[in-house]
């Protein structure tokens, strides 16, 4: 990772062909079209442990993904600071991840290795169907733009405070 990489990273996970799991890639594309300076947007798709390749020398990262949460309706937007002790717990069980290591595990491993940025934002939508071949559900689709704009606002605040 070159030292001159953009300080902010937006990293999306998800399978564009698996219903609501497309949320991450769709948000990534929406943020990318905003063409903000100082931000790199990467779509990690279903690639396992890919986030680790992109963390070094970053000031902040925003991870975007679909999530399961039994007691929340589909389409609920969840935003949290990874380092906030009061944030919703992340499931470490890799059975709930399509990414080889769960996102939580990747971030913890990055912390152990000393490559985790000081700001880590989590943005997720509660997914309904993630069956392969299904379209994105309406309740999730309408949150894509909302999530993208909130990420842009978060990024702007960080960049202004730098």
């Amino acid at each position, binding site marked *: 990772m070159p030292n001159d990489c953009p300080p902010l990273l937006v990293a999306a996970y998800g*399978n*564009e*062909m*698996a219903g609501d*799991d497309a949320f991450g890639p769709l948000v990534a594309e929406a943020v990318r079209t905003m063409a903000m300076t100082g931000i790199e947007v990467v*779509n*990690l*798709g*279903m*690639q*396992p*442990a*890919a986030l*680790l*390749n992109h963390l070094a020398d970053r000031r902040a990262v925003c991870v975007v993904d679909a999530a*399961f949460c039994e007691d929340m309706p589909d389409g609920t937007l969840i935003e949290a600071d990874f380092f906030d002790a009061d944030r919703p717990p992340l499931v470490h*069980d*890799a*059975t*709930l*991840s*399509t*990414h*080889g*290591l769960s996102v939580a*595990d990747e971030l*913890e*491993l990055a912390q*152990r*290795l*000393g490559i985790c940025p000081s700001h880590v934002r989590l943005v997720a939508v509660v997914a309904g169907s*993630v069956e*392969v*071949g299904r379209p994105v559900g309406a309740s999730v689709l309408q949150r894509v733009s909302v999530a993208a704009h909130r990420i842009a606002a978060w990024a702007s605040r960080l960049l202004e405070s730098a």
Partner: protein
Amino acid sequence: MSASKKDKSDNGAKRSIRVKALARVEGEGALNLTMRDGQVEELQLKIYEPPRFFEAFLRGRDYQEVPDITARICGICPVAYQMGSCHALEKAMGVFDQVDPAIRMLRNVLYCGEWIESHVLHMFLLHLPDFLGFESAISMAADHGALVKRSLRIKKAGNDVVALLGGRSVHPVGICVGGFYRAPDAAAAAALARELRVCLDDMCEITLFLAEHITFPTLEREYEFVSLCPDDEYPMNLGRIKSNKGLNVDQEEFGRAIEERQVAHSSALHAVVKGRGPYLVGPLARLNLNAEKLLPRAAELLPKVCKAVGKMLPWQNNYFSLLARGLETVHALELAADSLGNYVPPVRTRVPIVPRAGIGGHGTEAPRGICWHEYRSEADGTIVSARIIPPTSQNYAMIEADLRALAPQVVELPDEDAALRCEHLIRNYDPCISCSVHFLKFSRVRA
């Protein structure tokens, strides 16, 4: 999630080990193992295999869409699905023999990227913690952070190779039936070759270190090893399919040389060699059948590794698959470094194709074993039928056989240890379930 319950068995000698998991999208794995008086009474490995969806998806699609669609079967090995589909469709379209050597070279380099990325991920983040006694890569990183960082650098080099050839490292889009949409930039190839050389030196050192410092569990088995066996190179994209027990078939015949069986306890098919039984695909099979074709650095390393573990090839202990992956990573790094270091952009990046009605079958070597595809097309190139045999489904029956052999060793162990030993064995196969690490949860029913 796992659920415990009490068993009302009729005597105290019965023990059931249940390892159960719930997966999100791509699959689910569960293990039920019941033993009575130290003997296996029932063993069922249940895994759902997602590629079956895709065979139906592909019907009615244009042949040129297939590589991009099949790339989405797996986040770990999209190149394998792309290579399988491209080769099979080139046969169906009648252009297989027209593909230029330069394109074949670039395909091998692309595959090197995937092998490096996949093998290193599995070795260091998923499998090595088992051998070193850590719960996970996270806890392992506390004691072996430098090693994990070195592995991440090598893994990234693999990602970069896929990105260079495929346009991006995630579900690459630069591959088409007939070749590539564009050739990589020569300067970028040269720069990446330099990084690959650094990683090559490091991987040689790490692989030997692992061979010298790990104590491998013992489980010697009589496997039928099956892999591609080309005459003049280590297997990747081409070659007849052979085994150490007499299988020797053309690529097109492979789908008929094996039999995919439905089993009552799993929605995944179990493959066997017709007339014989379970077989093993993957790095151990490739290495045992093709060791003499390794490139110089891996060939030079192999006897040192054999000496360190006290075993000459053929290795019959699948725990050595960790080292087979290490040796294959060395081979792939050298092949990619040499090829990109000497790279000259090809005259053409793909062969022209006029669609036709046809059928073609072909397998390539995914990181975890043969990934075989067969397609039938209509005259306009529309896909009529598709058949995909992924490597993990070919290994299921052998995984179960291994677990049966392992069971007597774990029957007296505490629950957690028994579950870990079973998971460790399954991880020898690097099963292509994205969640393969800790994808099993454990509960036990004991009288």
